[in-house]
C-alpha cells in the first residue's frame, strides 16, 4: 500500500510543475514574439550566447538503406564542418545529432520524436528512403518539427505529407523522369519497355515516365515490375518485346549489379538502346567485371559521378570537401564508390537550412520560431550554382515544398560516364498538385 502513495504524490507535484512549465513556455513564446519587433536586439543576445543550433540527422546506418546512408553521413559531416568553420548558422555552430533509423518507418518516427523531445533539436533532416519519410513525416507534422528530407520521392510534392516537411535539395522523381522523355524519344527511340522495382519508388517511374513519353508521341510496350525480394533476373528478360527500341531500367538495392550483369549476358552485343537510371548502379563501379556491355548505353544522372572536362570550380571544391576522387570513389579506397547522384542533396539542404534560419530570424525551438522558419523556407524561390549548390541552379516552389534542378544524361564510354546532355529546369517542372501554404501551421 505504501507503494501506491508515492506515485500519487509524485503525480500531483508533476501536474503543478507541468502546468508551470507550460506557462513558462507560453511566456517565452510570447516574449520572443514581442521581441521579434526588435530583431537586431535579439540577434545581439543570441550571438553573445552562441548556443549551438541543433540539427537532428536521421541516418540509414543499418537496414537496406545502409549503403546510401554511409555516404549521406559523409556528405553531411563535410558540409557541417564547412559551415561551422565559416562561423555557423546565424553565428551559432551546428550541433549535429545523428540517430540510426534502421531504414524502418516505425523506428523513423521514433527517431523524430526523440529528436524533438529528448535532444530538443531545432530541425530534423536527411531521410532518404521513401517509406521512412512516409512513416516519420506525420509525427514531424504533429510535433511541428521542420523536417527537411533528401529522398527524391514524389511524396512531398504530391501533397501526401504536411506543412512542416520539405524537399528543397533534390529534384523529385516525377520531374526527373519527365525531363528525360523528350531526349529519349528524340535520340534513342519511341517504343519503350520499362523494368522497375515493384514498389513505391518504381511506381513513380512507371506512372510519370509513361505519361511523359506518351506526350512525346512514344509508347510503352511493356511494363516489367520486379519484386523487392527478387535476386535473379534472367527469367524476366525474355518478356521484353522484340520490337523494343529502348530498354528503360531502374533498380535499387543490393541486387543491382546482378541485374545489370544478367542483362548483359542475355543480350551480348545484339541489344536495343539501353537507358538506365543511375540508381541501378549507385555505389557500384561502372568498370566492374561483367559490365563491359554497358559501353554505349545511357544513364540519367542527377550529378555527374565522373569529373567532366568542363568541371566547375564548385564541383572541385565539393569533391575535395567530401573526399571523393574524379571517378566518384572515396579518396581513401577507390573501390568505395559514392552515391553521387543523391548525396549532394544533403549538402545543399544544409545550406538551404542555413539560409532559411538566417532569413527567418529563428532563435529557439519554440512554436512561433518554427512557424517563421517554415514560412521563410516557403518564401524561397531558388538558388544559384556555386560552392553551396554544386549540383547546379535550382528553382523552388514553395506551395509544394519541392525544388527543381537540371538533370544530366551520360553515355558509358571506356568504363566511365560522359555527359551528353543537360536538361533545362523547365523540362521537368509541372503544375503544382497541392498547396501546403494553405494548411494551418
Amino acid at each position: 500500500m505504501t507503494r501506491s502513495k508515492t506515485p500519487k504524490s509524485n503525480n500531483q507535484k508533476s501536474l503543478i510543475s507541468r502546468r508551470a512549465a507550460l506557462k513558462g513556455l507560453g511566456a517565452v513564446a510570447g516574449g520572443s514574439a514581442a521581441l521579434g519587433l526588435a530583431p537586431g536586439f535579439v540577434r545581439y543576445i543570441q550571438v553573445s550566447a552562441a548556443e549551438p543550433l541543433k540539427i537532428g540527422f536521421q541516418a540509414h546506418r543499418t537496414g537496406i538503406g545502409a549503403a546510401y546512408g554511409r555516404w549521406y553521413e559523409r556528405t553531411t559531416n563535410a558540409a557541417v564542418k564547412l559551415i561551422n568553420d565559416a562561423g555557423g548558422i546565424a553565428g551559432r555552430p551546428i550541433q549535429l545529432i545523428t540517430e540510426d533509423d534502421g531504414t524502418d518507418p516505425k523506428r523513423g518516427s521514433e527517431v523524430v520524436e526523440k529528436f524533438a523531445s529528448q535532444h530538443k533539436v531545432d530541425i530534423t533532416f536527411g531521410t532518404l528512403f521513401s517509406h521512412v519519410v512516409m512513416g516519420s513525416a506525420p509525427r514531424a507534422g504533429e510535433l511541428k518539427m521542420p523536417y527537411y528530407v533528401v529522398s527524391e520521392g514524389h511524396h512531398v510534392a504530391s501533397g501526401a505529407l504536411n506543412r512542416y516537411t520539405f524537399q528543397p535539395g533534390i529534384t523529385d522523381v516525377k520531374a526527373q523522369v519527365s525531363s528525360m522523355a523528350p531526349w529519349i524519344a528524340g535520340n534513342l527511340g519511341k517504343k519503350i519497355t520499362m523494368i522497375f522495382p515493384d514498389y513505391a519508388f518504381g511506381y513513380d517511374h512507371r506512372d510519370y515516365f509513361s505519361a511523359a513519353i506518351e506526350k512525346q508521341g512514344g509508347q510503352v510496350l511493356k511494363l516489367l515490375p520486379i519484386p523487392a525480394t527478387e535476386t535473379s533476373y534472367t527469367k524476366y528478360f525474355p518478356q521484353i518485346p522484340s520490337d523494343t527500341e529502348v530498354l528503360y531500367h531502374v533498380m535499387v538495392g543490393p541486387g543491382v549489379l546482378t541485374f545489370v550483369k544478367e542483362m548483359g549476358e542475355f543480350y551480348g552485343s545484339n541489344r536495343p538502346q539501353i537507358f538506365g537510371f543511375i540508381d541501378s548502379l549507385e555505389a557500384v563501379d561502372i568498370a566492374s567485371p561483367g559490365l563491359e556491355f554497358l559501353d554505349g548505353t545511357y544513364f540519367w544522372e542527377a550529378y555527374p559521378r565522373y569529373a567532366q572536362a568542363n568541371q566547375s570550380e564548385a564541383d572541385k571544391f565539393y569533391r575535395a570537401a567530401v573526399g571523393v576522387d574524379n571517378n566518384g570513389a572515396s579518396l581513401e579506397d577507390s573501390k568505395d564508390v559514392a552515391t553521387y547522384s543523391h548525396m549532394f542533396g544533403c549538402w545543399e539542404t544544409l545550406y538551404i537550412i542555413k539560409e532559411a534560419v538566417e532569413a527567418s530570424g529563428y532563435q529557439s525551438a519554440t512554436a512561433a520560431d518554427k512557424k517563421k522558419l517554415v514560412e521563410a523556407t516557403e518564401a524561397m524561390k531558388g538558388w544559384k550554382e556555386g560552392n553551396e549548390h554544386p549540383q547546379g541552379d535550382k528553382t523552388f516552389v514553395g506551395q509544394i515544398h519541392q525544388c527543381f534542378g537540371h538533370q544530366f544524361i551520360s553515355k558509358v564510354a571506356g568504363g566511365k560516364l560522359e555527359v551528353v546532355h543537360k536538361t533545362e529546369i523547365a523540362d521537368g517542372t509541372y503544375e503544382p498538385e497541392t498547396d501546403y501554404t494553405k494548411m494551418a501551421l
Partner: protein
Amino acid sequence: MDRHRSLAFHGGALALLFLLQFVLPPYHHTNFTSIMVLATYGIGYNILIGYTGLLSLGHAMFFAAGLYAAGLTVHYFNIDPISAFILGAAAALAFATAVGLVALRTTGVSFMIVTMMFAQACFLLILYFNQVTRGDEGLVLSGAARQIGGLSLTNPTFRYNLALALFTGALVLCYILIRSRVGRVLVAIRENEERVKMLGYHTFRYKLLALALSGLLSGAAGASYALMFGYVGATFASIEYSIFALLWVLLGGAGTVLGPIIGALLMFYLVEWTSEVTQSYRIVVGAALVLLTLFFPKGILGTLREKRLRWLP
C-alpha cells in the same frame, strides 16, 4: 488470498501506467503510448504461445490485417476512427479464424512454418495490390481524419489514455480467459494435448478459439497503431514484426499476463540505450534472445513465478 494478491498486482500495474503519464517527459510519454499498443499485440501473441503452446512465426499478418483494414477505410472512405477500429479488429478476427481452420491441422514445427508462409504471402499481397496500398512506401492518414468526438488522436494525453484503455481491455480479457474453464483447457493442451483429447475435449475447437482471440487482439493493436500514429506500411507485415512479438513475450515470460508489456518495455529501452553507445541494435536483440534461452527460458515473470510469486497467473 492468492486471487486477491494477483488482482492487486495487476490492478496496481494498470494504476501505475495511468499515473506514469503525469511524470513521464514527452519523449517517453509517446514511447509508452506506442509500447502499450504493441504490448496489446504481445498479449494476443501470448495467448497462443504462452497459454496454448503454439509457436507462430506469422503473427505480423494479424497485426497488419487490423492495420490495413482500419487504415485503408479511413484513407479511402473517410470513415470515423471508432468504426475503423471495430472494422480492423473484426477483420483480424475473421482472418485469424480462417487461417486457423487450415493451419491448425498442423502442429509443432510445421505450424510455425505454415504461419510464416501465410504471413509471407500476406506481405507479398500488400505489395501486389500496390495501387491501393502504395506497397512498401505506405500511406499517411491525415490528422483531420483522425478525430474522435472533436478530440484529435494526435493529442498526446488523449492518445496515451486510449492506448491505456486498449491495453487494459486486452489485459482483462486475457486475465478472464485464463481464469476460466476454457483457459484451463488451453493450458492443459499446452502441457499434453493427447491427454486432453482422451478426456473427450475437442482440442481443435479450443485451439481455434485461442488463435481467433489472439488474432483479434493483434488486429486491434494494429488498427490502433494505424489510427494513433497515422501511418500504414508493408514493413509492419514483414517477418521482423512477427519475431518482435515472440521476443517480447519470451523476455517478459511466456504464459504470464503482464509478461508482454514488460518484455516490450525492456526491449524498447534496451535498444534505445544501446543505440546511444553503439549502432548495433541487432546484436542486442540477438544476444537477448540467445541469453534468454540459455539462462531464463521462462522469461522474467516466469522465473519470478517459479522462485517467489507462485500465485502469478
